[in-house]
């Protein structure tokens, strides 16, 4: 099985879906000739031509809105926002339009669009190239939000997103793009949107997280195993709507739960995960639910000292797991 990077899995999924279905096309800034500023669409322009790998004007609401129009017609657009930080001009199109088209038309019209965007920090991107903005979209029924952690999940979930009959936001951790590598089958497989995935079996502590933080948790778990602390790691993979059953099972398994997000804590995805556990697992819990998150500051600063202070890492996760184990 070939080993590839997280971003190569993105490219691979796009290429395979475009080969499979002529209605799939990509649009965004710099996605064509340049192959994307991160190279996520590398090679697609040469293979599929400018009509299906469309360099657009620098205007995010149009990138989303034109994609939405094409999706309503019956195409399968994959729109790229260059950074999730720049998705904000398109929020009206995503929340007022894409998410509500099926519901408001009583199932007459549909909007099968995928909107991809790199998110997350740790790349010296400062305030406006480092954010995690998923919580802005995570209370809008009609939308789905996928945030994969591994190359294997990237390929399977991006294919599912493109084939999904409803709009999907597909957020890719940009620090993971080249840092995270893994085995990816060459065959055509999909993974279910809305299903969390157990990334490590354990019996003492449950960590529930998503994206790059999954890897921090796995590294911490590996280290703590030597000390006799067994960590169960659940990767949410889809952060909206959440896999309630998967969360309940994982939390109940150990009774001690650590929730992690790179986003700041208040109003984040893990607050909702916490509520699900509180509503369903009271008698299975052996400790208060613990949350580890980014700090309550507006965004991630540029200076390396400040960025490091903001970012989560395996050491911070390890400390949090140990505290919970000692409770």
């Amino acid at each position, binding site marked *: 099985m070939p080993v590839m990077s997280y971003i190569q899995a993105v490219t691979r999924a796009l290429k395979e879906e475009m080969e499979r279905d002529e209605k799939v096309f990509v649009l965004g800034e710099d996605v064509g000739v340049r192959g994307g500023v991160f190279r996520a669409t590398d090679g697609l322009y040469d293979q599929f031509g400018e009509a299906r790998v469309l360099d657009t004007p620098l205007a995010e609401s149009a990138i989303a809105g034109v994609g939405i129009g094409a999706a309503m017609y019956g195409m399968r657009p994959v729109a790229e926002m260059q950074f999730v930080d720049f998705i904000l001009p398109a929020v009206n199109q995503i929340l007022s339009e894409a998410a509500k088209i099926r519901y408001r038309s009583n199932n007459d019209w549909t909007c099968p669009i995928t909107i991809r965007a790199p998110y997350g920090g740790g790349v010296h991107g400062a305030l406006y190239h480092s954010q995690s903005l998923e919580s802005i979209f995570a209370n809008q029924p009609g939308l789905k939000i996928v945030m994969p952690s591994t190359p294997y999940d990237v390929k399977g979930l991006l294919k599912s997103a493109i084939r999904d*009959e409803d709009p999907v936001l597909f957020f890719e951790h940009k620090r993971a793009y080249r840092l995270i590598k893994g085995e990816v089958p060459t065959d055509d497989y999909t993974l279910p949107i809305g299903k969390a995935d157990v990334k490590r079996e354990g019996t003492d502590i449950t960590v529930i997280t998503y994206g790059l933080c999954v890897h921090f948790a796995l590294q911490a778990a590996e280290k703590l195993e030597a000390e006799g602390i067994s960590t169960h790691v659940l990767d949410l993979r889809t952060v909206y709507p959440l896999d309630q059953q998967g969360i309940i099972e994982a939390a109940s398994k150990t009774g001690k739960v650590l929730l992690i997000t790179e986003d700041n804590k208040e109003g984040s995805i893990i607050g909702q995960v916490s509520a699900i556990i509180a509503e369903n697992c009271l008698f299975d819990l052996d400790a208060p639910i613990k949350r580890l998150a980014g700090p309550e500051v507006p965004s991630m600063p540029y200076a390396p000292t400040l960025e490091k202070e903001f970012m989560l890492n395996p050491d911070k996760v390890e400390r949090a797991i140990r505290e919970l184990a000692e409770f």
Partner: protein
Amino acid sequence: MANSVRRASVTKNRHKELGLSDDQVMDIYRTMLLARKFDERLWLLNRSGKIPFVISCQGQEAAQVGAAFALNREKDYVLPYYRDLGVVLAFGMTPQELMLSNFAKAEDPNSGGRQMPGHFGQKKNRIVTGSSPVTTQVPHAVGIALAGKMEKKDFVSLVTFGEGSSNQGDFHEGANFAGVQKLPVIFMVENNQYAISVPVSKQLACEKVSDRAQGYGMPGVTVDGNDPLAVYQAVKQAADRARNGDGPSLVETVSYRLTPHSSDDDDRSYRTKEEVETAKEKDSLKSFSTYLRELNLLTEEIEGKYKEEIMKVINDATDYAEKAAYADPKTLFDHVYAE
């Protein structure tokens, strides 16, 4: 009669040279009249407490129907805004279907009673579903045209919006995208002089909305929105251009909003009665009726017959919609996602 015959000798037949038959112009007039009478019924229903909300087409019927008739109503796409009763009637939505929407009943094809009236959508007639935040439909029209170009189809998309909407980013982003890609889109601004209470003088830094076309590499024209033939001609030219691969056009139709913004607005607080009365003198229903009478196409008798037929259709639609069922509360959860 003698009077109209005498006048016919000086009234020029303007529709023939546009390629419109006598039957077609009569159909345009009848559709305008249907839109007006239907709209008037909505106000009666609202003021008698039977429907909660009205948003009106009055004053814009000529622009709406003239534009719709310039398209291929078998294959083109329209992305109307909330006043476009005339557009959707011309594109095949029936008075009964529209009345079901106004009563918010389950059978409403636009939304099953989920959306406010004026939020049109009907896939079988290529009327694309819309929302309330204005101008979001503009990039959608561009996307539909892009899809058509990719699929090598020869349809065009017509998107309409008010002059206030021409200030929104989605107008500028969408128009620029269509201009760059030379897409078959017709942007039609129904300039009715007011964005609720704010007059056009406080909305536009340029003289005409059509001036904005230049920035997006497309022709822009301003026409009399009370003249369905002028609108037909401009939209027909734009559609021909689009189908020939020459790209998008901007058409501005200037008329006047004859009613308050909606049933919840009181326009006496921001404009004078005299101003509204002056505008009514230019009402397209009057001027187009006069044109057709002067050509001896429309007579008292035909007009009477039209009105009688229209009132029957509207009465039947009202009765049907009033008696129709609301959505079952259990359907609240239907169609959030594909099932």
